């Protein structure tokens, strides 16, 4: 911990069902190691957004304290995951003419064109969470990832912009500020999950990551190594429980339990025709008999609908045909038995449960689909840190060269 060559990165996800903090250690050689994990049941969040700030703050405190104890560090700043039905993703293009005499594209040109692409007409209350660079186009030539040093007259760049309502984003940030935590950056949780799950090859081939959380379902589409599309559906595992509570006429907590113990995404598997579940009270007296078929039907319909809605959205932005690596599920919802099979049937694509294997440390504890987002947040943080370090070294370099010049003029 006292080794100055490593820095601590913390990912914090304030989810609908749990608050999760993951502590990562970034070594000087670029290796990322997870050293701590803390989680707490979340009580102040609905549909991915905070609805009871004091309660949420308390839960965050629990999670952070647990993570601090486990990692034996003091957490000062976090990368915060944000989600909610108000987040929207779309693609935007920026154009910039290359004006230098020799038509060589410089770093400044690249910065300019990205700046142009980021200037979007958004309602005043909206805030851009991410503006992710896709590919550059030079004089109409597509697919250029780094144009510095190339020749051209007209440079364009596509960015994927994720934006949301500023006030609602601020709510999550404020709950951390109350705990004396700095927020390094806010990250769309779907993006974080995809960072944790996907390898570069999968991004290149084209994949869809669906994070079925408690309150929201986030999804991200990668194709040709870049983010093509993102989206949030404010429907998640909570809705499944709620549907069950309503349909089977049981309390919500019981519905949650039934979902976990007897739930399945498919009607037929495992076979359930005619089976019933008897709910007993603490004395063992039967309280209620529930038809397993009904339970499955309610769950299956809801989950199927989630996949259908995602598919409709992807059809609309025309990205369905890019997904050659298939679909990866994560989040608590991906623990539902047979969900991959249901997704396969609905989306007509190979579907698997994502593995967070792109990171080392605490392997067995972390390889759970629920932690994908928090781990992804740490990973996002490590990218930012490296970028910052790289920038720092450039300015250092400039400083030293300037120093040399002055030295020379001094002599």
């Amino acid at each position, binding site marked *: 911990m006292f080794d100055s060559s490593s820095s601590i990165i913390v990912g914090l996800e304030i989810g609908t069902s749990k608050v999760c903090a993951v502590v990562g250690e970034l070594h000087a050689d670029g290796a990322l190691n997870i050293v701590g994990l803390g989680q707490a049941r979340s009580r102040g969040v609905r*549909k991915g957004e905070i609805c009871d700030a004091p309660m949420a703050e308390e839960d965050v405190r629990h999670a952070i304290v647990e993570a601090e104890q486990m990692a034996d560090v003091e957490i000062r700043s976090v990368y915060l995951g944000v989600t909610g039905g108000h987040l929207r993703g779309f693609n935007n293009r920026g154009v910039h003419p290359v004006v230098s005499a020799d038509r060589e594209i410089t770093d400044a040109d690249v910065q300019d064109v990205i700046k142009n692409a980021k200037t979007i007409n958004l309602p005043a209350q909206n805030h851009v969470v991410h503006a992710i660079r896709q590919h550059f186009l030079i004089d109409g030539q597509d697919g250029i990832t780094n144009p510095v040093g190339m020749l051209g007259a007209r440079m364009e760049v596509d960015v994927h912009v994720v934006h949301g309502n500023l006030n609602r984003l601020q709510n999550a940030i404020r709950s951390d500020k109350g705990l004396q935590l700095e927020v390094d950056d806010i990250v769309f949780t779907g993006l974080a999950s995809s960072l944790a799950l996907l390898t570069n090859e999968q991004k290149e081939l084209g994949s869809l990551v669906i994070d079925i959380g408690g309150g929201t379902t986030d999804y991200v589409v990668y194709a040709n190594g870049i983010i093509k599309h993102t989206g949030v559906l404010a429907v998640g595992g909570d809705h499944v429980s709620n*549907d069950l*509570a309503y*349909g089977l006429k049981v309390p919500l907590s019981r519905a949650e339990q039934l979902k976990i113990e007897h739930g399945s995404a498919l009607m037929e598997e495992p076979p359930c025709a005619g089976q019933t579940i008897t709910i007993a009270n603490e004395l063992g007296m039967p309280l209620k008999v529930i*038809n397993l078929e*009904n339970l499955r039907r309610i769950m299956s319909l*809801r989950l199927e609908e989630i996949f259908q809605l995602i598919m409709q959205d992807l059809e609309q932005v025309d990205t369905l045909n890019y997904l050659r690596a298939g679909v990866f599920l994560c989040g608590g919802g991906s623990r539902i038995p047979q969900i991959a099979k249901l997704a396969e049937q609905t989306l007509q694509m190979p579907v698997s449960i994502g593995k967070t294997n792109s990171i080392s440390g605490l392997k067995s504890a972390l390889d759970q689909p629920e932690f994908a987002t928090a781990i992804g947040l740490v990973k996002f943080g490590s990218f930012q840190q490296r970028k910052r370090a790289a920038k720092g070294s450039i300015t250092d370099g400039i400083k030293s060269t300037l120093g040399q010049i002055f030295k020379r003029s001094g002599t």
Partner: protein
Amino acid sequence: MSMDDTNQLPPEPSPAPLPARVPVRVFGAGAAGIKVCENLMAAGMPAGVFFALDSDPRSLAASSAVEKLPLTVPRARDMDAGAGCRFEPPPVLKAALGGAELIFIVTGLGGSTGTMLGPLLARAAKEAGALTLAFVTMPFDFEGTRKKQAARDGLEELLQAADGVICLPNQKLSKLIDGNTSFVEAFKLSNELLADALRGIWRLRTRQGPVELHFEQLCELLRDQHTESAFAVAEAEGPNRSVEVLEKLLAHPMLEGGQILTEADSVLVSLLGGPDLTLADVNSVMEQLSSKCEGAQVSMGASIDDSFRNRLAVTVIAGRQPVPEIGVRQRGSAEPLNHQLLGRSETKPESRFVPPPPVLPPERMNQMLRQSGGRGRKSSPKLRQTQLPLEIISKGRFDKSEPTIHRGEDLDVPTYIRRGISLN
């Protein structure tokens, strides 16, 4: 509508020259129709195209229309005896209809004159070979069920007779009216709204524009969906007009805050601007409107009028396909229940949970009732007893949170309920 409007303008002695042979004619039938025509003439529409029809000489005398046709309306008793089919338009009416290409019929349904005369007029106009479009108002709820029933019957007949019907249920105005609005003003407002709609369509017809919207298109839109059509007209002036006009439109009571647009299957937008109408204006209006009605077919027309410099008027007509009948139940118990549908639910002991019923306008309910045969009404008092408010679907833990609406569906309501799948 048929209430006597006391602060109407005093009757003006009109010189009554023969009307020029214009292809468009407006017939105001009954007291309400005549008043709407007065409104239109006051707004500067040529008086030559207006015809006032009424059986009541007093309201005819109050009209400043050029042509006044006192008519005797066949009494309801005679109509029931089959006289309606044999109703011969008097020669004076035939003459008025002759040579017109397009005929607007304006009337208030529910009263004695308009209800009878409207369909007859429409039929006669059709026989004369004109496109017929009727603008009608439905009575307020407080005017009594008998009047409402009469209005529904009238509308039903009008729908069959005319090419298109635009219907303004007065009850919808209650949103527009605050506690201080006088009784008389409420009716005036209704007249004004109807006049607005007529003017909007009139413009569509009479002004030449770069993007023409054919009248046939309009009729097609209105023909099958008339019971659910809603219209709104808004005008704005000044440099910011494209934004203002949209705001006005979306605030229009007939569109229910844009909700109607979201549910519409087809939307017709007509823009009228001066020569200074910019593409950006048109674009921004259309873009905003289209985004409101993603599921609908949108057709648009734009026309230019020199007098509209620095002004922009937008007319929106939204139509919706009649709701399919399967699985439909009515909300509340005030309306007689569809006999056939109830029969279905009686025989099958399915889930207690029913999908949230689509909100049906009274006209539609009535139509469904008719289809189920005459027995429905007789047994309705008995059926009313069985209606329980089962449709209240609690959203459980999402009750208080912001609803997740996706294409008009509330995703917080369990999927199986929305799809109407029963649990056994």
